[in-house]
């Protein structure tokens, strides 16, 4: 048995085994189990991406059954990219969490549970990225949702419980709506496998309603404006490592499925107006999220609203994708670079925000003056993440913006370019408001006593990776070319 052939299955099994072992091992050993699992997952993810790059997309038949009877995993460049991103951010979050939970009161948190839930969520995310049929998507997305809600409420505080309830409501509503859509789609086309669906789908009302419900449900789970109501409180009141994982990875999971449905499954000319609507909502998200971020007085809420804004960029790909395969390649690569850059930078920014909260003992922005002198590394990490949020070079945010603006200008739909430029300036406004507070001179008497922040280099590593992501764009571009979307559109790598 050659390990390389079973990489897709191993990527799901490894974190699942880790989760089970961590549950049994107890709170002292669990962090070590999680670290080992995370490291193994990084290795597997990199091997997996290398194989996809070398061989192109392939299908993995679980147990050798094959669709439509068995379950097929689809291994392509897009899946590989998100899996690698998840593994890198996941590893950093795991290391951060082992320090974070050690320094807090061991009885206040569901310690042992954190590691199990966290690895379980990782399992479901990897499953979500690999799955090739729309019903399996439902299973994975439900599992991601449940473990994410549990992680948000793990501290047990009243704020966390309130935010968790709201999150649970959104999550359940989304999952149920999605399942209803799957049922309608199955009634119409008699299949749940994505590749089969894209061949069999005929424009009838049942299938159209099913697809519309599924996309709407995923939009709710991705927190695209106006369905973002649950995100800021959930992401802001979770423990710091959870906030980072939710903002960097979990919203990307449901977005990934939207990409699959809109670009792979849905035939051309289906659901007219859906792509434009998603683009318009994306533009609205950029403006509304940024304006909200600008007026927040608590650091984690600012960062969470920034996520609302940054999610908007991801949806600009849909209207642009209808303009021929060259523009599709530019726009899809741009969206994938943006998802990667945002994952790294937002993960880093949440970890840095958590460090600042630990350092100051509160999360009130106005009282964080003088942080630049007290915790220079964290301040620097915040500033670097700002470079990506604003889309300034040489960050991944810049590369994404460049690609999307090129796509907009090539297709003649120049108004999306205006949205991208304005979004960058709005991001500059809220990020520099944050940086200006941290860098301002603090009155000596209110300067708080130093509290050790042991994990301050981790956020810096993530944000620095996001800032230098321009140099990894050839790789992301190759992975995008190895996606089923671009392969079936006839774009050669």
């Amino acid at each position, binding site marked *: 048995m050659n390990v390389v052939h079973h990489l897709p299955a191993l990527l799901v099994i490894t974190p699942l085994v880790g989760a089970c072992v961590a549950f049994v091992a107890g709170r002292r050993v669990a962090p070590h189990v999680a670290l080992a699992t995370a490291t193994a997952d990084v290795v597997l993810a990199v091997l997996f991406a290398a194989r996809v790059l070398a061989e192109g997309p392939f299908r993995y038949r679980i147990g050798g059954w094959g669709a439509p009877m068995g379950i097929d995993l689809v291994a392509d460049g897009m899946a590989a990219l998100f899996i690698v991103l998840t593994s890198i951010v996941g590893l950093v979050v795991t290391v951060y969490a082992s320090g974070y939970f050690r320094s807090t009161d061991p009885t206040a948190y569901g310690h042992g549970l954190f590691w199990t839930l966290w690895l379980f969520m990782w399992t479901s995310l990897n499953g979500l990225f690999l799955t090739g049929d729309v019903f399996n998507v439902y299973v994975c997305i439900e599992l991601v949702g449940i473990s994410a809600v549990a992680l948000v409420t793990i501290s047990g505080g009243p704020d966390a419980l309130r935010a968790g309830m709201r999150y649970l409501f959104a999550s359940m509503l989304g999952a149920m709506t999605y399942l209803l859509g799957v049922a309608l789609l199955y009634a119409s086309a008699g299949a749940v496998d994505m590749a089969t669906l894209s061949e069999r789908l005929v424009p009838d009302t049942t299938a159209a309603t099913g697809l519309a419900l599924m996309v709407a449900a995923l939009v709710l789970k991705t927190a695209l404006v106006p369905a973002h109501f649950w995100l800021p409180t959930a992401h802001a009141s979770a423990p710091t490592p959870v906030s980072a994982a939710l903002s960097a990875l979990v919203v990307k999971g449901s977005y990934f499925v939207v990409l699959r449905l809109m670009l792979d499954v849905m035939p051309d000319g289906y659901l007219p107006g859906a792509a434009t609507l998603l683009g318009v909502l994306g533009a609205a998200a950029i403006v509304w999220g940024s304006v909200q971020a600008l007026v927040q007085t608590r650091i984690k809420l600012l960062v969470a609203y920034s996520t609302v804004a940054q999610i908007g960029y991801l949806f600009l790909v849909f209207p642009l994708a209808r303009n021929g395969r060259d523009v599709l390649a530019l726009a899809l690569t741009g969206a994938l670079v943006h998802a990667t850059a945002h994952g790294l930078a937002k993960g880093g920014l949440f970890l840095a925000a958590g460090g600042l909260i630990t350092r100051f003992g509160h999360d009130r922005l106005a009282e964080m003056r003088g942080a*630049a002198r007290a915790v220079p590394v964290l301040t620097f990490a915040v500033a670097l993440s700002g470079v990506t949020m604003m889309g300034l*070079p040489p960050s991944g945010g810049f590369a994404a913006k460049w690609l999307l603006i090129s796509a907009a*200008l090539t297709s003649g739909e120049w108004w999306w370019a205006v949205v991208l430029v304005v979004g960058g300036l709005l991001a500059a406004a809220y990020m520099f408001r944050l940086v200006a507070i941290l860098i301002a001179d603090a009155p000596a008497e209110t300067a708080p006593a130093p509290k050790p922040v042991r994990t301050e280099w981790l956020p810096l590593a993530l944000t620095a990776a996001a800032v230098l992501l321009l140099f990894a764009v050839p790789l992301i571009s190759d992975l995008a070319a190895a996606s089923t979307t671009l392969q079936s559109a006839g774009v050669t790598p």
Partner: protein
Amino acid sequence: MTVWLPVLLPALTGVVTFALGDRRGTARAAVNLVGAIVSSVVVVSLVIKSYAGEVLSHAVPTLPGLDFGVHADLLGLLFSAVATVLWGVTLVYAIGYMDHARDRARFFGFFAWCIAAANGVALAADPITLFIFYEILSLTTYPLVVHSGSSEAIAAGRKYLFYALGGGAALLVGVTWLTVLAGPVPFTPGGALASVSGHTTELRIIFGLLAAGFGVKAALVPLHGWLPGAMVAPAPVSSLLHAVAVVKAGVFGMIRLVNELYGPELSSALGVAQALAVLAAFGIIFGSVVALRQEDLKRRLAYSTVAQLSYITLGTALCSPLAAAGALAHLAHHAVMKITMFFTAGSLAETLHVKKVSALPGVARRMPVTMTSFAVAAFALAGIPPLAGFASKWLLGVGAAEGGAPWALLVYVASGALAIGYMVPILIASLRPGDHPEAAGTESDPRMLWPIVTVAALSIIFGLTAGLPGSPAHWALTAIAPSFGGLMP
């Protein structure tokens, strides 16, 4: 890879500076000075190669169909050499000036990164690479502007960012649009857009966007508003960045834009060069007149910079070979002259707490060497022969007459008179008897004094050697010639 060193060495110096932290002052000074000296040696060796006709270049592939590349041509090396050599001089000054300041690791680290970015702007082989370094320069300057952390500094920083990021956005749209229209457009002497026919309206709008983007850093009126406010930064920042590296990145972008992207011919044919020339001429007169009325010494120098940068833009926009060469030469000449003046202003503020023109009486008696250096730079700026300013203005004036724009000659003469008008009162005021209690002839810290003397001497040397190979004027003529189809007399 050698061609990346002028970017990588200062960047590495910055990293080491941050790593050393705030306490190890001696190590920090040593690392920075060694970094500056090695970088200068590398740049000079590239200049020697480039004079011999060997232009090194290197590119790293990044975005699809788009390379991130630098090349060591004479044009770029002139700016790079000015920035790198003056970085070394300014470091000595800054080590003296910042002796008791806080957060010195942050200061020197970002200072080095600014130079790395400026060198990137100088050597960038295409508009996209230039844009990338241009934005990095904006970002790395911000912490230096707000260095003190006072509310005044934060406000100035906000204004600076507002302008810089707005300009960057215009530049981004312009560069993307141009690439979509024309494909990759590496800088080519004489213009890179030969393949584009028609699209005149689009090309005009793109030129406007790019000129606006560069115009922000070039303090082209009405985009100059950030510069006087940014004077709240420590003196070495005002000296090196707001007289040399940052503002010259803007005018250098203009030079690349007119000579090597659109080309002088296309720029005139589209009518965009003429529009830019009129704007720059207005900027010269506006900056000079406003400078006359400034009571704060650094603000007066800042408005003088606004005017002098527009000299360079005007010379470039005239699209005549001698004026373009004069503009490039003035980039170097103005750098040494204005840095002398800002060094002096910093010394007066730090040693004597003199910041206003009205507080100057007695200063010349107290610090004769410093004020003599200032006088040399002031006369050079006004264009008195045989100092540096005269050489570039001669080229600019002759070029204006040759290029069929005698009105520009009038602007240059008028602004020379205005420069005397805002500089000489400073000298006269400092010569008046005043009350500075310490013994006459006590200068500031020698680490601040000698850099002033050095750069003042350069203002004399650049003027005297203007005809010799290797001097900025000769260098500029050689570097600009290919844009006009060959060697000039």
